[in-house]
């Protein structure tokens, strides 16, 4: 394995270990996702509309809000005791640090995204058996795009006085493609349409995720310069 990949792996494991020892973000995001799902299900007047018709949009908004909650605190622990300075002083290139961090964040958010899908399937009586693989793929691509943008701007916002309150303002405008393509694909699949109908949107979502990851890896070094 090349040195670069090993460096990414080291950062990835470090973040994951940190997360699974404290479980702070995981518990917060999971509780948030479940509670939001429950509240959402009570906001709908089920005598007038079928919950399954609006589930796709709610699923994506829950993932976005839950993601902001968890991904926004990516640098929180490391900033508190100056540990991030240590990471930056290590001979690991900055883009490897970024890729390691988004991989760890991705794993975290993807678990939450699957949980969200499960919660909504349970509460909204969704029919997902026929398209579960396509749904999982869409959630993965959307989560990847989200963590790429979220991690980059979490680094930005944690360096400002406004802190995490700034994160949504920076990330939400850029997330529109994820919400549109993710929402369209999920909505169609939940309505029982064939995967071939939404393949184009899944591809575009994937392209968006890749560009977001590449751009984040390029720009991250300018954010954490000192």
């Amino acid at each position, binding site marked *: 394995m090349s040195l670069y990949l090993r460096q990414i792996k080291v950062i990835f494991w470090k973040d994951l270990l940190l997360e699974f020892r404290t479980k702070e973000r995981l518990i917060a995001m999971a509780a948030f996702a479940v509670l939001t799902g429950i509240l959402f299900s009570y906001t709908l007047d089920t005598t007038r509309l079928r919950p399954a018709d609006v589930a796709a949009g709610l699923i994506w908004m829950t993932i976005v809000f839950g993601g902001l909650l968890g991904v926004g605190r990516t640098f929180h622990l490391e900033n508190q005791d100056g540990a991030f300075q240590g990471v930056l002083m290590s001979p690991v290139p900055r883009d490897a640090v970024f890729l390691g961090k988004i991989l760890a964040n991705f794993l975290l958010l993807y678990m939450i995204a699957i949980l969200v899908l499960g919660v909504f399937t349970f509460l909204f009586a969704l029919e997902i058996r026929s398209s579960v693989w396509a749904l999982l793929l869409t959630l993965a691509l959307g989560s990847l795009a989200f963590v790429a*943008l979220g991690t*980059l*701007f979490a680094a*930005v*916002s944690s*360096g*400002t*006085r*406004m802190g995490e309150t*700034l994160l949504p*303002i*920076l990330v*939400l*405008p*850029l997330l*529109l*493609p994820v919400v*549109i*393509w993710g929402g*369209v694909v999920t909505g169609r699949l939940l309505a029982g349409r064939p995967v071939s109908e939404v393949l184009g949107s899944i591809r*575009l979502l994937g*392209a*968006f995720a890749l*560009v*977001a990851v590449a*751009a*984040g890896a390029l*720009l991250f070094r*300018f*954010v954490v*310069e*000192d």
Partner: protein
Amino acid sequence: MSTSELRRIGTMLTVLGLLGLVVVYWLSFFWVSTEASQGVAQRIFYVHVPAAWTAFLGFGIAALASGMYLWLRDERFDRTALCAAEGGMVFATIMITTGPLWGRIAWGTYWTREPRLTLTLLMWFIFLGYFLVRRSSENPEKGKRYAAVTAIMGALLIPFIHVSVLWFRSLHPQPVVLRTDGGPALPGDMLTLLLTSLGVFTMLFVGLFMLRYALEGLRNDITLRTRKVIV
């Protein structure tokens, strides 16, 4: 160009631009012929389209200058990006207020899920983030870098935002001047007025930009001098 020269030329262009704006208003109310299908409401076109052009000019310059700043670390690029972004913000606000006013009459709705509308609105918010990031950074150098990263990320992802909204059917009028099939499709007097207005708005933008740039330079000088006095 020295700061005083910048201010002189900037003031001149701004005054000329403002006078030109009066002329454009007069022409669009009293001179140009009324469009057949949309009636008088179409006259807002001579403000809306030039404002849109100037807004995207400003945002484009801001994104390019941000990239140059990260690359070369020359203060002047950061100043250029800041001043162009502010100009872009002003004209984008004009664009997003005139658009719905016209849309209410022509489309029967203020807002619709439409590529160009969404793009502009999100651009506006991306640059709102740009200013917030700058402002809330304790260390100004950091703020400049953060802002540049925000502008570049916005510029990179804008094509995706555009493509994603193309999902929805477009109500927005198609281009009438720069078209792929043949020349402009506007009657003579309308085209003349539109081009005049484009020139006037661009002049106003450049004038305001130069004034703002000079002001930012003066502010820098003062900060440097106070620092020297304190030391």
